[in-house]
């Protein structure tokens, strides 16, 4: 009787142990997100800026600085 119980327990443990082997990975597969639409031109890619990023950035910085009334009043 005891031997039967021991065998049953051993079989149950083996089944439980093996059940773990069938477990599939639970991690969510994170695919790399990439923009799927049309390409956009850079703001400085126009005859006005001649493709010069630095020129455009200087203009934008000066324009942004115009919002500072403290410098405008001095």
């Amino acid at each position: 009787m005891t031997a039967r119980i021991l065998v049953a327990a051993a079989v149950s443990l083996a089944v439980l142990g093996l059940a773990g082997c069938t477990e599939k990975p639970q991690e969510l597969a994170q695919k790399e997100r990439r923009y799927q639409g049309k390409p956009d031109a850079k703001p400085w890619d126009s005859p006005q800026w001649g493709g010069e990023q630095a020129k455009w950035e200087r203009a934008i910085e000066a324009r942004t600085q115009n919002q500072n009334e403290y410098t405008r009043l001095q």
Partner: protein
Amino acid sequence: MARMKFLCDAERCIECNGCVTACKNANEVPWGVNRRRVVTINDGQPGEKSISVACMHCSDAPCMAVCPVDCFYRTTEGVVLHDKDLCIGCGYCFYACPFGAPQFPQAGAFGLRGKMDKCTFCAGGPEKDNSAEEFRKYGANRLAEGKLPACAEMCSTKALLGGDGDVVADIYRQRVLKRGKGSEVWGWGTAYGAPGQKPAAPQQPKS
């Protein structure tokens, strides 16, 4: 490199809606779509505050993360834009956005949603710069002309600042030092991250 940002000074905003009007006019935004809104907290009570709200062009934009068709991209200047030809108007971006920026025009009967529309920082979209097609879909491209968004440039009290983040932050710092109060910048932590946090890398469209 210039990183475009908006900053709204709640100490200065007088709820004139000049920014809303300027945006509507510059971009010919359709009826029912508000790319920019003025929100007033504690309206009519002492200490009420108003802020101008639109897309903040977040450093790590949640709309980009949830879009099922990946129609969003971030330009090298940090402006978050989207391709309307790809947008399916699902509304996920609206649920993800902490600022309620994405807008959906009614496209048919029974409240059928059209393609998402939002503030472009007056930078147009993925069409030929300053073309009729770009204006029809996305509005004005003032950035390509070396100008700043119409809302910020129109603001009479200069409560709404827009432009290169470093310059905008310097202007605000100087302002706070002069008046000695009101250093809290609404929405900056949410949009651009806490100080010391690494900014998100720009994602560029394939060319």
